[in-house]
Each structure stands twice: as structure tokens, then as C-alpha cells.
């Protein structure tokens, strides 16, 4: 029996635009090993993972696999309008005669989910699922094929911490059965806890290799080649009321908002905590004005009319959308043009008949600099940026100027530790400058770092409110689980 499940030798990948994403990388993974791949945004992790999975051909180098590989990509690859069971069993459907055996299929998928501790509703349409559930479906789809090697690109970036733990337990169980696992992640805590071996990429080369037991700080050091930047300090807190939601009802089904009240003052960061699917998405969509809702929203004392995103932007709302590729960025467009989106009608970029190229260039240069966006050039298409750099771009656009209200949905999703620290600092700086910030995040740790106040969302309504200084993991966790008591 072969000792290793995957052997990569001298992998070089040069993209069509001339970007050398990988430059002679060697990685070997043994059967039954959980191997973590870490690195800054744009270090080449996704590229390497895709090459390992056989989805991308290397420019040079050799790839040897001992068996079939399953691949869970960074951005979901599901058929939105099909049901969960259809997605999971696509290509290997149970059949009765010529017909699909739907009952058997549903039972298979439910059983699969139970086996791996990844609960899903086989009959749900994928488009109605939130990111975590989609992630589970995607993993199940790969597991259904019993791969010898499972490759996951940032599987936890859309998961709540508890869900990530479950996932890693699943991976551990898989590994125990002999499956090799290659996982790309920015969560160094997970890496330290679960990975047997760790490869750190830097600018397309292997920067360091670690064995189990390495300290997160050491890994981070190898990734960024220096110290983690410190978080910006918060200055004294303003109290002018800025944003107010009253009796908000939106969305449908289990994730609907049912009479939610919220207030965000200028110069305050309010974090919305909660298990995914408790009303976060309807809340964000109502505020952004892209979905119908009942109740009232006020910004700076003026009511926001429903269904008018443009009016909200004019009133000073900026958004970091939850799904950067579907809602936030135009992948076919350049960095420059993407950074003008939303502000095209206002000075200094627009305002008149034409767009001001000079102002657009200035803004782009400043955002790219302030948010450390690694892009080949301002004219490069956004689809050429790595996922994390796309996220930085999205955040940078929202904070290019000083908005009145910033709606930040999962602001650091898919961003490496250093960049995440930088972005959180930018959020705090905005707060210091008087911006009302509403941060919706599944990561409690993130909210602990930045929020002045945390509101827990449970089944579409407020289930508790905690002031900075009184943040208590246990009590917030209880509220998130629907246990009352303050």
C-alpha cells in the first residue's frame, strides 16, 4: 500500500495574465493525515488546492494521487435551484428502472448527514439555504463519493465556530478511516488543534512547515513574515442616535425577522451575534433596501423608504455585502470600476454626465493602499484576485469615504489573520470618526474585538443585549441558543 495519498513535486503555476501564483511547491500528504495549508491572501493556496484536486493543470511539476480526490471549493459550486439530495447525489443517483428513486435518494442523503454529523434537509432547495448549510451540502456531496483524498478550500469561513468544530471532528473521523485531508484555512486555532502537519505558503513558495503542536503565533509569523499588527485603539464614544429600526418584519420561513428593534448610535459598533439562519439575512437585506419588509427604518431622523437602495446610498449607507461574488463585486470588471460602484452618481467620482477617471484612480489607489489589496494593477479584472483580496476590496469600497451607517456583513470572511486585524482596525477607526457601524458576524471572537455592544438575534427577534465590558461568552452563547436570562 502506498504510504502517501498525494504527492506534489515542483509545482509551478503561471496564470494567463502572467501572474506566477506558485513557484516550485512540494507537498506530500500521507493517508489518514489532516494537512493544513496556510498563507496570506493571494499566497497561492486556492491555486495549489485546485491543482491537487486535478481541477487545474500546473504549468510544470508533477501531481501524484493514490486515489480519487474530492474537492470543496472556496466559493460554493452547487446547483442553486435543485434540492439538496439532487446536488449531493448528482451523477450517482439511485434508480428504479429508468426512474429516479427519490425516496431512496432522500434517505441516503439523510443517512449520510447523520453518519458525518452534518445535518441537512434533503428536500430543501439549495437557494434557500444559508452559507453554512450550503457548505455542509457541498462537503456531503464529496463525502458521498468516499474519496481517498479530500481537499477543502476555506471550509470554515462561512461557518459559526461551533459548526467549525463539528466539521473538524468529521474530518478527524474521516482521517481515522484512512482518508487524507488537505484543508485550506485562515483559522490558526483550528489549524493548531486539528492538523497533523502544516504547510505555510508565502508568495507562491513554501515558507515553513510545521508539525502538530505548533503555536498559532509561530504559524502566523511564518505567514506574514513579521508581527501581527495591533488593533487600533478606540477613542471616547459618541452617543448621537443615528440609525433606528422599529418593528422590523422581513423574510420568510424559519429565518424570518419577527418584530425586531435596533438602534445604532453614531460612533458605535453594534455587533449582531447569532447562529446562522436566525434572521441575519433578512435584516441585512431590509437595511440595504433590496427586499420587502414591514416596520420602519430611520437614518439620521429620516425614514428610509422601502425598495430604494439608491436613496439609502444617498443618505449615507454603505454595505459590505455578505456574498462578495454575487452581491458585491462585478468579477469581470477592473478594480478601478468596482471601486466606483455605488458612488457613480456623486462627486468626486460622478455627479455630472461623465465619470471622473482621475478621481476614480485616486480613490482606487488609496483604497488599495489602506486596505492592503494585492492586485496586479488597478486595471486588473477582479476575477484575477484571490478570494481574500476580493473581500478587502469590498470592505475598502464601503469605507472609501466616511459613511453615516456602515452595514458590515461578515466583514472579514476569508481574510488572513493580518489582513483581518487591519480591517478590524479600519472599522474601529470609522467608529472613532463617528460612523454608526452595524456588524453582522458569526464569529463571536470578532465581535468581542470590535463591538461596543452585542445584540443577539434568535428566531428573528432580539434575545439579549450586552455592553462592552460585560461581554460574557457563556451568557451570549446561551442567548444565541435561545436560553433566556440576563
Amino acid at each position, binding site marked *: 500500500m502506498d504510504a502517501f495519498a498525494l504527492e506534489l513535486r515542483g509545482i509551478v503555476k503561471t496564470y494567463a495574465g502572467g501572474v506566477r501564483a506558485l513557484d516550485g511547491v512540494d507537498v506530500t500528504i500521507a493517508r489518514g493525515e489532516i494537512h493544513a495549508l496556510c498563507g496570506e491572501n493571494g499566497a497561492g493556496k486556492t491555486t495549489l488546492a485546485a491543482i491537487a484536486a486535478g481541477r487545474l493543470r500546473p504549468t510544470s511539476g508533477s501531481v501524484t494521487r493514490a486515489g480519487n480526490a474530492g474537492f470543496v471549493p472556496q466559493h460554493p459550486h452547487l446547483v442553486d435551484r435543485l434540492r439538496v439530495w439532487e446536488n449531493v447525489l448528482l451523477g450517482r443517483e439511485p*434508480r428504479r428502472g429508468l426512474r429516479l428513486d427519490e425516496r431512496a435518494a432522500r434517505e441516503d442523503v439523510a443517512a449520510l448527514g447523520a453518519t458525518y454529523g452534518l445535518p441537512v434537509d434533503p428536500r430543501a432547495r439549495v437557494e434557500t439555504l444559508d452559507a453554512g448549510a450550503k457548505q455542509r451540502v457541498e462537503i456531503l456531496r464529496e463525502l458521498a463519493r468516499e474519496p481517498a483524498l479530500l481537499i477543502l478550500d476555506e471550509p470554515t469561513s462561512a461557518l459559526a465556530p461551533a459548526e467549525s468544530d463539528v466539521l473538524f471532528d468529521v474530518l478527524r473521523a474521516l482521517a481515522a478511516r484512512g482518508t487524507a485531508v488537505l484543508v485550506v484555512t485562515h483559522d490558526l486555532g483550528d489549524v493548531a488543534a486539528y492538523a497533523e502537519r502544516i504547510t505555510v505558503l508565502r508568495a507562491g513558495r513554501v515558507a515553513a512547515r510545521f508539525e502538530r503542536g505548533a503555536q498559532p503565533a509561530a504559524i502566523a509569523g511564518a505567514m506574514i513574515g513579521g508581527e501581527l499588527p495591533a488593533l487600533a485603539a478606540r477613542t471616547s464614544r459618541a452617543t448621537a442616535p443615528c440609525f433606528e429600526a422599529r418593528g422590523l418584519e422581513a423574510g420568510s420561513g424559519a429565518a424570518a425577522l419577527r418584530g425586531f428593534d435596533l438602534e445604532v448610535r453614531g460612533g458605535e459598533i453594534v455587533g449582531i451575534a447569532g447562529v446562522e439562519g436566525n434572521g441575519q439575512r433578512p435584516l441585512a437585506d431590509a437595511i440595504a433596501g433590496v427586499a420587502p419588509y414591514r416596520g420602519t427604518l430611520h437614518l439620521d431622523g429620516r425614514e428610509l423608504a422601502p425598495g430604494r437602495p439608491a436613496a439609502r446610498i444617498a443618505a449615507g449607507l454603505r454595505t459590505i455585502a455578505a456574498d462578495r461574488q454575487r452581491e458585491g463585486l462585478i468579477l469581470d470588471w477592473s478594480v478601478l470600476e468596482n471601486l466606483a460602484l455605488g458612488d457613480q452618481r456623486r462627486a468626486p467620482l460622478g455627479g455630472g454626465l461623465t465619470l471622473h477617471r482621475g478621481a476614480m484612480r485616486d480613490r482606487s489607489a488609496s483604497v488599495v493602499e489602506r486596505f492592503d489589496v494585492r492586485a496586479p494593477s488597478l486595471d486588473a479584472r477582479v476575477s484575477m484576485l484571490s478570494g481574500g483580496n476580493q473581500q478587502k476590496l469590498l470592505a475598502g469600497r464601503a469605507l472609501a469615504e466616511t459613511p453615516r451607517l456602515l452595514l458590515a456583513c461578515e466583514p472579514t470572511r476569508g481574510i488572513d489573520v493580518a489582513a483581518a486585524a487591519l480591517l478590524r482596525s479600519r472599522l474601529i477607526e470609522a467608529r472613532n470618526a463617528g460612523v454608526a457601524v452595524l456588524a453582522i458576524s458569526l464569529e463571536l471572537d470578532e465581535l468581542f474585538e470590535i463591538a461596543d455592544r452585542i445584540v443577539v438575534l434568535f428566531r428573528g427577534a432580539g434575545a439579549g443585549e450586552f455592553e462592552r465590558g460585560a461581554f460574557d461568552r457563556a451568557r451570549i452563547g446561551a442567548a444565541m441558543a435561545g436560553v433566556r436570562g440576563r
Partner: protein
Amino acid sequence: MNDAFAGAASFAALTLVKTAPILFAALGGVLCERSGVVNIALEGQLAAGAFAAVVVAGATGNPLLGLVAGVVAGALLGFVLGFAATRFAADHIVAGMGLNIFALGACAFGIVVAFRRPGASDEVAALGNAGEAALIAVALCAALGMHAFLYLTPWGLRLRACGENPAAVRDAGLDPARLRTIACTLGGGLTGLGGVFLALAELDLYSDGMTAGRGFIALAAVIFGGWTPLGAAAASLVFGALSALQFGLQRSGIPSEAMQALPYLAALAALAGLTGRARAPQADGVPEERRFD
């Protein structure tokens, strides 16, 4: 009373006759588009089917061979569309437009070559009334059959998945390009059968321009039908019934154009009524698979 009944019966019959070629083409279009390939070449496939059927029926004296030839001709064009769209990442609309122009040109030229005279073929051995009735039945059954195929069989599921997200289909270990090409080929064959209906079941000749925009009407039926076989069948029936109706309603005194406009006005009105409920397959017309991250 008797007259009214006879009128209703002949109206129904005329409706079916008008519906059949549109329905075949619409079903061909549905199959193609559900796999993710926009098929704007229905008109050309209809013409090719009609032309090939007439040439072969004329040469062999056997209309059944003509029927086979018509299906094959439509399927060939479908294959070219599918192949260009998948293996060469061709833009579906450009390729489809090109195939239309090609097919109509080739048929017009083919008439000169095959019958030594431009414009229209000779009359050839045709399928006759029995064939016409049989093909109408085939068209209606094909709609039901395609519904069962798309929604009840694994291959239907795979094909629909291709139209929504080919990358996911590839992840599942299938070859979306191949599936799409197969769907286009089958769809082309069905559309070709629509051409056979026109040329050999309803008539017994090929004449330039005889498809008269039916392929485009079929495209409209695909969209009205919400990209589903039964929907497309209903839409084709409505188009068929409206044109049958305008034939009956024409009277001296009323401008004939007003009556001829009826089906098209109805379609516009329906557009306002059917408030975008149906959605095109998500990856319909997307030539390449999306990048994976």
C-alpha cells in the same frame, strides 16, 4: 348548430396543425436550453429538417426515409451548435445566428442543386393525412415524454443541472460539455422533426421561406412556457389557436393585417400579464464554466 360544431371541430384540427411544428421546435429548444445552451437556431433547424426530408423523400420515393433525414439534419445542426458552444466556448447567440444564416442559405442553394431550379422543390412522396395525424400525436406525446425525462429520470436531472451550474456537474464527475452537446443534438433532431411535419406531413414540398418565422415563435413559446416542456406545449397551443382563430376571423371590411396581428398582440399582452414568474436556467447561454473560486 351542426355548423357550429363542424366549425369548432375544424378549428381544433387547424389549431393542432398550426401547433405541431412550433411545438416540435419549442421542445427542441427546451431541451437545449435546459442543458444551458441558448438555441436561437430553431428556425434554421426547422428549415434544414424540411429541406433534407424533401430531398431524401424525392430521391428515394420513401417519405419515411425523408423523415429520418429531416431528423438527422436537425440533429446535425444541433450537434454543431452544442459542439461549438461547449468545446470552443462559442457565444451561443452568435453561433446560433450563424447557423440560421448558414442553414437558410444552404437550403436555398440546395434546392438549386437538387432540383435544378431555384425557390421551391418539386412535389415529393409525402406522409399524407395519416402521417400528419400521427406526427401531431407524436408532438403531444413528446411534450409529456420530455417532462417525464427531465423530471423523473437521472439523465434529466443531470441535464437540468448542466443548465444551472455546469461547474457543479463537473464536480460530480460528469462531463457537462458532453451532456450539453447531446442535449443540443437531440433537441435539434426534434426541431428537425418539426420541419419534416411542415414539408412532408402538412405539405409535400420545400419552398424557400416556408418556415416563415415559426422557429422564432417557438423560441417565444420556450420562454413563455417557462423553459418547461408542458409550459412550452401550452404556449405553442396558444400560438396555434390564435393563428387558427385569425384565419377564421378574417372578413372583408376588417383590415386583414389587424387579424394577422392578433397572435402577436396576444403574446405582448401575455408578457404584461405573466409577470416574470418563470426564470431561465441560471447558466443558460454561459459559454464557459465558471472559475472554481
